[in-house]
C-alpha cells in the first residue's frame, strides 16, 4: 500500500512537471526527460562527478565538524545545567541567524577556499546537532537516573549506560536533520560565496539559460542528499535496534 502510494506520488509529480514544461511556466523550462538526458550527459562528461568531489570536501569538513563538536557540546549542556542555560540562548540565536547575509564576512575571515564553505555548512548544521543532543539528555527518564543512583552507579556508568543510550535517538535524529541543512548550506555557500563544485555548475548553466543542466545538477544534489540521508537512517536503525 505504502509502495503504491509512493509510486503514485512520484508519477503525479512527474506529470505535473511535464505539464509545467509544456505550458511552459517560464522561459526554457525543462521537461523531466530533458533533465534526465542532461543528467546523463553531465555524468558521462565527468563534470558532475568532479563538482561533487569538490562539494563533498566542504560538506564532509563542515558537517563532520558539526557532529564532532556539536554532539559533545549538547551532551555537556544537558548534563551540566548552568552550561545548558547559557549556551541555549546562543544556539537559539544561531538557528534564527540569517546565515546567507554573513557570507561576505566569512570570505574575509576565512579566505576564498573550501574552508569558507565548510564554515557555512557548519553554521547551517551545527546548531541542530547540538540542540538535539541537549534535548536528548534532558529527555532521559528521571526514573532511570534515580534507579542508577539507587544501584550505586558511578558518574561514568550513569553517562554511558543511561544518559547516552537515552539521548541517542534524539542525537541521531538531529544528525539526520542537520545533514539536510548541511546540503542546503553547501549550495548556498557555493552560489553566494565563491562558485565552485555543484554551485558553480548550477550558476554556469543558469547564466547560459541551460535550464535542463541546471535542473539536472539540482536533481543530482537531491539524489546525493537522499542517498546520504538514507544511509544515515539505516545506521540509525542499526544503532537503535536494542530498543525493539
Amino acid at each position, binding site marked *: 500500500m505504502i509502495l503504491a502510494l509512493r509510486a503514485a506520488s512520484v508519477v503525479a509529480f512527474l506529470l505535473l512537471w511535464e505539464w509545467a514544461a509544456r505550458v511552459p511556466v517560464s*522561459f*526554457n523550462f525543462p521537461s523531466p526527460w530533458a533533465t534526465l538526458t542532461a543528467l546523463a550527459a553531465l555524468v558521462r562528461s565527468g563534470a558532475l562527478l568532479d563538482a561533487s568531489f569538490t562539494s563533498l570536501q566542504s560538506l564532509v569538513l563542515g558537517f563532520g565538524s558539526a557532529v564532532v563538536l556539536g554532539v559533545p557540546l549538547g551532551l555537556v549542556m544537558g548534563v551540566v545545567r548552568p552550561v545548558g542555560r547559557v549556551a541555549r540562548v546562543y544556539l537559539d540565536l544561531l538557528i534564527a541567524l540569517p546565515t546567507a547575509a554573513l557570507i561576505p564576512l566569512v*570570505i574575509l575571515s576565512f579566505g*576564498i577556499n573550501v574552508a569558507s564553505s565548510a564554515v557555512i555548512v557548519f553554521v547551517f548544521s551545527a546548531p541542530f546537532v547540538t540542540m538535539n543532543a541537549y534535548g536528548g539528555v534532558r529527555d532521559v527518564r528521571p526514573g532511570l537516573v534515580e534507579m542508577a543512583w539507587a544501584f550505586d552507579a558511578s558518574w561514568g556508568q550513569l553517562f554511558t549506560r543511561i544518559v547516552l543510550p537515552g539521548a541517542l535517538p534524539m542525537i541521531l535524529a538531529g544528525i539526520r536533520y542537520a545533514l539536510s541543512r548541511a546540503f542546503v548550506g553547501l549550495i548556498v555557500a557555493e552560489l*553566494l560565496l565563491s562558485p565552485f563544485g555543484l554551485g*558553480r555548475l548550477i550558476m554556469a548553466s543558469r*547564466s*547560459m539559460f541551460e535550464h535542463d543542466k541546471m535542473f539536472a545538477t539540482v536533481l543530482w544534489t537531491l539524489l546525493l542528499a537522499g542517498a546520504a540521508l538514507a544511509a544515515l537512517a539505516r545506521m540509525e536503525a542499526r544503532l537503535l535496534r536494542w530498543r525493539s
Partner: protein
Amino acid sequence: MTRYRTTLILGWLALGLIAGPPGAAAEELTLLATVTRVVNLPMIVGLRLLEREDGIRVVVKDLRSPEAVMLGVIDGQGQVATGFAPFYPAVEKGAPVRGVMELSRPEFVVMAKTEITSVKELNGVRLASHSPKATVQSLLEFYLKSQPGVRPNVVFIPEGSPARAEALLRGAVDAAAFDLTAAQVVNERAPGKFHILVDFTDQPVSSSSLVVNAEFARKKPEVVQKLVRRMLESYRQGARDPRFWVRERGQTLKEIDDGKLEGQLRALVKIFDLNGGLDRMRGPGAIENLGFQVATGNLSGPLTKWKPEAFFDLAPLDAVLKDLGQR
C-alpha cells in the same frame, strides 16, 4: 434638496476631473535592473527625463542577478531591462527580447598589488572575478587569450565589485577585476598600494544593452522610441557636464556625496556612447561585438551563423538619431 443635488453633481464632476477621461491613464513602464550602481546613473536620469517630459511613469525593480533580469523581461514582468552577458545566450535559446541601444561599454579594470608590475606576473596569482559567465569574466577570458602563458588562479566572488574591492584591500586576493568606481575606492582607501594593470574600458564591445520585450516593442513602438530618445539626451547632456547626472538623479544614490559622485561619473563618461552604441549593433562593429560573445562562450560558434538583427532592433535608435543627429 436643490443644494444637495448641486453638491452631488459638483462632486461627481470633481471626481471625473481627478480620474480623467477613460483611456487617458498614464503610461507605465517597468524596468528590471541588477542592483543600481554609479554606472547606471545616466540610465536612471534618462528614465527621469522620460517621466518628466513624456509623462510615462517608470518603475525600476532591482533583481539580484542578470539572469533573473532576463527571465523577468522575457516573462513580461518588466517591459524593459538592462541586458548584460546573459542577454546573448537568452536570444540564442529563442528568448523574445531585443537590444535597442547600448547602455555602456565595459566599465571594468583589473587592479593588482603594486608588486605585480606586469600582466605576465598575474600568472598563478589569486585574481577575483564575478562569476563564470559574467561580463567581467568574459572580458578577462577574452583578454587572457591574447596573453599566452598567463593563467591567474581565478576565484569567484559574485557579491559585486565592492566585495571584490574589499577582498583585494584585505589581502584575500592579489588582484581583482571590478568596475572603475571600485578602483577609485581602493585608491582612496589604500593610496599607492594597488594599481590598474588592465583597462577594459577601451574594448570595442558592449557591456550592457537596453533590452525590451519583443511583444511590448511591437505593441508600443512609440514608447520605446521615447525611451531611447531620453536615454540619449541624458547621455549627451551628462557627457558635456557630469554634474547634470548628479543634479538630476533624484533619490538614487543619494547616500553618495555629490562631489565624489561627480568624480566617479567623470571617470566613467568615456564608456557611454553618444550614438547609443550604433557602431556595435550594426555592420562590422556588431560582428566584432558578437565575435567577443562567441569567443567567450556566451554564444555558440561559428560566428558566421549570427546576424546582428537577431539581437538588435535598431528602428527606434535610427529614428531618434535621425531627429537628434549623430555625434
